[in-house]
């Protein structure tokens, strides 16, 4: 509860931020890399929402995409491989007032971090997760990732990948408590921005898979989709993404998709040709773990100390009791 006067004053002196206020350093990504498009869209979102840099945190694991926090002039946590989500969950639990974003790659999220990914969806904590999916391990110079298409020749699969690619969307849509799933492609920045913005405004874990080009290792992989608008299926709905008239002229392949329809979302998500782009599923009524588990009362120093003491006491050996041979309680 904020007093009326404070609210009014805060609004009166609202600080405005420019894109530059969120830019930090020159990205070390290759020129032409789709990560740049995601970075630009996210910086735009921060500016448009006037997110206070000190109230915003980007968390990542390991990979090209996970360099993301370095390029945001906010708080950030460049974590360890596959562990972006647990770190972000810890941050949200301790500081529910922060805007938490997670940037993770297809290797980071869908391979070594897969267990955390599944449970993060189930926990449904309020954060925006962007899966930068370029379908390859780029930072370590081209090894197949779980989302690499079958037959892709890479340093680890010189005869071509043997397995069907994993579809991060259908996996996410299959987990209990899923509350927001969308797919964007880096070559339609307007829609990507709208999707990331909707994901940010959704209360709960919003999972956005961003299909992203890797010009260095897979320059040809997505070309057919890039150059043929018919291979993109735009999902539109009055409760989801509305397509601008200029975009509608280029992308004629569109479908009205109600984001509350989970079955239809699963069906649509399983396609890649044409690739569905838009909000597949949204359910704002799924409870957030941080709210279910909020402890009543304030975390005062005394309370924290008491809790710690109680925990440590479980393992304390009491010299006197030990001497008397009595079992410690």
């Amino acid at each position, binding site marked *: 509860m904020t*007093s009326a*006067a404070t609210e009014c004053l805060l609004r009166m002196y609202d600080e405005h931020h420019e*894109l530059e206020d969120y830019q930090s350093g020159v990205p070390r990504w290759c020129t032409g890399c789709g990560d*740049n498009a995601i970075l630009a869209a996210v910086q*735009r979102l921060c500016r448009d929402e006037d997110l206070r840099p000190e109230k915003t945190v980007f968390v990542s694991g390991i990979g090209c995409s996970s360099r993301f926090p370095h390029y945001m002039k906010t708080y950030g946590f460049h974590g360890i491989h596959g562990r972006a989500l647990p770190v972000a969950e810890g941050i949200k639990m301790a500081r529910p007032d922060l805007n938490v974003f997670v940037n993770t790659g297809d290797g980071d999220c869908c391979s070594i971090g897969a267990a955390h990914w599944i449970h993060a969806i189930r926990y449904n904590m309020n954060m925006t997760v962007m899966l930068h999916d370029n379908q390859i391990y780029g930072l370590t110079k081209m090894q197949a990732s779980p989302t690499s298409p079958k037959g892709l020749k890479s340093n680890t699969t010189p005869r071509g990948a043997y397995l069907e690619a994993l579809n991060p969307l259908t996996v996410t849509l299959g987990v209990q408590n899923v509350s927001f799933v969308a797919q964007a492609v880096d*070559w339609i920045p307007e829609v990507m921005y709208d999707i990331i913005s909707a994901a940010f405004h959704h209360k709960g874990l919003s999972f956005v898979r961003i299909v992203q080009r890797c010009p260095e290792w897979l320059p040809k992989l997505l070309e057919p989709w890039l150059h043929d608008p018919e291979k993109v299926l735009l999902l539109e709905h009055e409760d989801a993404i509305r397509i601008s008239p200029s975009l509608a002229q280029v992308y004629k392949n569109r479908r009205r998709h109600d984001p509350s329809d989970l079955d239809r979302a699963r069906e649509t998500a399983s396609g890649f040709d044409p690739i569905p782009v838009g909000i597949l599923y949204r359910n704002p009524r799924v409870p957030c773990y941080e709210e279910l588990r909020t402890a009543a009362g304030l975390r005062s120093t005394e309370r924290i100390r008491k809790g710690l003491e109680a925990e440590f006491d479980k393992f304390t050996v009491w010299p006197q009791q030990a001497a008397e041979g009595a079992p410690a309680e």
Partner: protein
Amino acid sequence: MEAGLQAHVAFHLTGKTQSDGLEAITGLDLRPALFAGYRDLTRLRYDFPLVLAQGAGEGRAPVQSLSAVIDGALRKIVQAGEADRLTKHALRLEREIRVLVAAGVAGSLSSLLDKAAWRPMAQADVLFRDSLARLRAALELDGEIVDCDKAMPARLLAHLWRAMQRRKARAARADIDRLVLRLSDILKADLVRSEAGRSAASLKAAFGAAHEHAFDFDAMSRLLQKAAPADTLSDSRRRRIRRLVATLQAQKFFPPPDRTTADGEFYAFAFDSAAGALDAYRERLPSMMDLAKAMAIAELEAAGAYKEERHDAFFADFATNGLDPRDAALFPDYLVRVDGGVMSAGDGARLMDILTAGLPMKVLVEIDDILEPSAAGGGQLVLGARSRQLASSAMAQGDIYVLQSPSSNLFRFRERIEAGLEYRGPALFSVFSGATGEAGGLPPYLVAAAALEARAFPAFVYDPALGGDWASRFYLQDNPQAELDWPVQSLGFEDEAHQRGAERLAFTMVDFLVCDRRYAASFARVPRARWNGHMVPVEASLGEGAEGAPETVPCLLMVDGDNRLHKVIVDRRAMREARRCREMWRSLQELGGIHNSHAQRLLTQERKAWEEQLRRTASASPAPAVEAPPPPASVAAAAAATELPEAASERKSEEAYIETPRCTSCNECIAINDKMFGYNRDKQAFIADVAAGTYRQLVEAAEGCQVSIIHPGKPRNPDEPGLEELIKRAEPFL
């Protein structure tokens, strides 16, 4: 005029019995015939007594009727086969509780259940004991039981008010504790960074005694002193935060959840007089402002948003024009209880001061007697004049919540009472308790209910929060048959020939008056032998003119202790009071939109105009032959004329351009020439200066662009080397 009628008319006009044929009603234990069914209230299941639930405000109704509580428990335990027995026992216990309460026994539901259980049956009855145990286990709540008596309105209101205050205090307290903790954390962090905080002694103290010998705190301090932090709190901010913490901790408005205001450490907000409440309010106003200000500043400080150059001046003049209503709503409301019977003119004026000034006070004006004679003489009754005046002045003010109700109707108004307590502003609750002490054997509940039925003390609510006009704010519908002058009920009886009869009887102000001992002289019983056709029901008689010698005499149907019917004639004074009462009721009806004269007048006008129009249409010449539709205008021609303009002319392919909205910010073009290509404020590329580079660079950028949105156009410099080849390469991108 025949003799019988003569005597009756004489009584009606003078109030004196001049013949033997009439009998005074004092001592006959008569009551209005419609009360015949309500002789023993303990045998009836109705709204009262009430259970004032303990721990109210936690998702449970704070007040419930005893019957509803018992029914709720029964629903939980009743199973097939045992339903009859459990229900019978539960209802028996409920009646015993009613009997106890009616006899003046006070206590909680559980204690009264214990007492009641001793009465009906031997405890040895196994089945009864089983029913009792199961009923007790199924009771969802406990709390004080109150019957509809003189003290009930104040207890009910205070109970609901306390629940509301607790909710408010809990919310405000949580807010204050959070702010104190946050500010203390800021101070603590500042201390740790200060020189004093990094001194050896302070480090040692922070460490604890267990292993202190293992550390060299001097060395640690020296090391830490070197790493002096760049930013510390400014002195003024530190002083401000300390002041805020002190103010927040010293506040006396909101006790912690486990404390009450009884020990004097915190302010109490319930008062028995307007003057007391007003004095307390004035005295506490400065600390209230201080606290509101401290909370506002603390909120800014906690968010790190307090800027001295902006906010100092603002807070120096904080709330000089009063607090924002939303901020004021955080603070406790005062509860003022006033006895309307003994209220002086000064008290009344002070109450009006409170109400018109919009102070956060909830005022209960209780009145026990609405039938006392007017002090002005002339034999007229006051009919609760003081509380009526208060209520109508308050309503005229427009932004005051007003609720008037006899006590019997308060339970039905419980949600409206809560709305009044929640209302951001003053509220006036005007209640008639029914405990006149002059109503013979009638319990206060019946007297209060009779006042409602007889329109002597109508129930209404004026809630400014519900809308901007009277239609949405004023609520009159809880009065029985509100659209009529007097509510009409059916009375069934057995006649001399033991045949069933029924009559529709209106319950009027006269029925209410006859319950009061002080007005017994206005009534005279007519023995059955002298009943005649000139005796007409009061309601019919009220419709006639009051002047001149009447041909009929108004009479009431009443019953005695054995429920035998009697007829009682009424004198002119009682009739006059009934007419006055009806006038007041009618004016209330108008406010409530019932038989509203403005609306009716408008309706008549409109109807007249409509009929007039109808007549004109009918008298006009017969309908003309259907005209042919206008010839279709040359639609085709028009359409042709407004041909869509040519599609937006395509950009000239001679000129270089970028489809900026489609740019993916991938840096390809920027890497080629960052003067020629630039980013806009959304970090999407455009051609910043086409002259800043060569045509070759444009073509290379177009080829390199991942999304093919760069269009190089035609070369500007015809002397550029290798142009022929470049133009060929540029072709796919034009």
